[in-house]
């Protein structure tokens, strides 16, 4: 378990973090979300024993990072924003070195190198010099070094930083395979990355945690409404004109749980609507539209729910 009690960090007069208090249960995957410079990396560096907190107590697996950093470092695998790679070494030599400095004996090291190479899908790059690897593979080697000693806690700071869309998906899949085997802490300002990989989300703003919980919990606590998207194909006797579109709009607005609704894009014989309800009222919406003689082609909770939560909490200027 990871526990922070009033942890803070100042750089001179500048408060980079805190005071922050939180508890992260064993085996969970937690995402730290926030704009650049809000203290995500500072917090992770404190847990990785790379940065000393200026106040409070940080415990990793029950061990205080200030009292016994040596023990904490054995429990933690850390991938900083820029992977700490020796470009002159081959992948195997680098992982061997990473394992040896973490105290692995030669038998364990051979086994673990094979395992982490397989987990991170770099077995075929084993003999290649790191300098010659693509950015995506370098990132994977960075994850592999963090895993080599089977740490209880895996800290990944912006693991998809600089990756292309395919590499981002591969990294996301990799993180999913690591879940449950480790307690994973991920920092990112990319919302989908956090949304799709984490059980719990911690949103930081100006060095403080402004919200925490699952995406569902945050949605209920932060957003005053649930967004939905509805695509309707009108009945054959109604045509595709404005009249039919407005008829469905009136129908939707008449539902008591719907706060507001508006017509979105029109594509062929299908019209999209955007709705906000006091709760998830997809069942009621679907029933009403079908009973009115139209076809429901698509009905989703609005995508990018986390983006709405994030913008609500950190302000509309969010670039995330």
């Amino acid at each position: 378990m990871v526990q922070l009690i009033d942890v803070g960090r100042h750089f001179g007069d500048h408060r980079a973090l805190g005071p922050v208090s939180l508890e992260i249960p064993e085996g969970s995957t937690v995402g730290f979300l926030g704009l650049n410079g809000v203290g995500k990396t500072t917090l992770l560096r404190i847990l990785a024993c790379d940065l000393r907190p200026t106040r409070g107590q940080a415990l990793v697996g029950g061990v205080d990072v200030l009292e016994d950093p040596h023990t904490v470092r054995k429990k933690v695998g850390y991938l900083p924003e820029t992977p700490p790679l020796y470009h002159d070494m081959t992948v195997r030599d680098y992982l061997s070195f990473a394992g040896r400095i973490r105290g692995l004996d030669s038998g364990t090291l051979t086994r673990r190198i094979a395992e982490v190479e397989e987990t991170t899908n770099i077995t075929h790059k084993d003999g290649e010099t790191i300098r010659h690897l693509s950015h995506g593979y370098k990132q994977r080697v960075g994850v592999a070094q963090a895993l080599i000693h089977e740490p209880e806690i895996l800290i990944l700071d912006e693991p998809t930083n600089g990756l292309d869309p395919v590499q981002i998906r591969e990294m996301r899949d990799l993180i999913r395979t690591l879940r449950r085997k480790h307690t994973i802490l991920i920092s990112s300002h990319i919302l989908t990355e956090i949304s799709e990989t984490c059980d719990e989300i911690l949103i930081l703003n100006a060095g403080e945690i402004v919200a925490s919980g699952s995406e569902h919990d945050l949605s209920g606590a932060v957003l005053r409404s649930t967004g939905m998207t509805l695509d309707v194909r009108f009945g054959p006797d109604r045509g595709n004109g404005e009249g039919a579109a407005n008829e469905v709009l009136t129908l939707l607005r008449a539902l008591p749980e719907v706060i507001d609704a508006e017509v979105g894009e029109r594509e062929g014989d299908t019209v999209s609507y955007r709705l906000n309800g006091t709760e998830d009222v997809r069942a009621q919406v679907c029933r009403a539209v079908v009973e009115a003689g139209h076809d429901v082609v698509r009905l989703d909770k609005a995508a990018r729910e986390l983006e709405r939560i994030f913008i609500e909490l950190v302000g509309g200027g969010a670039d995330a």
Partner: protein
Amino acid sequence: MSGVRAVFERELGAYLRSSIGYLIGAVVLLLDGLLFYAQALGPAAGERISGEVLAGFFLNASGLTAIAALVLSIRLIAEERQTGTHILLTTSPLRDWEIVLGKYFGALVFLTGITLLTLYMPLLIFVNGKVSLAQILVGYFGLILFGAANLAIGVFATAFARHQLVAAATGAVITATMFLLWPLSSVVDPPASRLFASLAIHGRHFSGFQAGLLHTRDVFYYLAVTYFFLLAAIKVMEAKRWE
């Protein structure tokens, strides 16, 4: 000690894989060779006894060893700070002394390798002149001790500085100051002159090795300088590791 060994092997491997290691080696060997030719074989060499030639060789070699030690040591920690690879070490369970000693011994073995590659020159004197093997061995022993002390100064500088240029400047200033103590000792009055002479990294402490004389005092001096600067480097690492 397994941590020291891991870091040592990584550092030695880094020198052997990089062009800078070979470049330093090549430059030192070239300059050593040229200086040896000039003083022993060239037209301006004149008639000299072989003991003098050997002492001159060790004198020249010591200057080049000091420069090589400084250049080799600069990258050890400051470069890692600049590239961010130091995080791998500082977030690992390695102790600070393991990091410092591992890096130090990696550089020392490489420097010793370069130094020993000059052996053909004293052997030429041995074959063609009248010097003993013990004289040569003592000279090399002194050269390695002298290189070890200069390397320790460089390791302290690289642990202290955030950038390689600052590390180079810091190391150069300390080394130059310790060199200059010897000529200074002859222009100041006692007791400062005695203090300067006994602290100078060259001069009194190296002249014995140059002549093939092994004094415990000189061995102890170089070991003490090495120990002092390595200890200082470890303390600096401890202070900087947690920022």
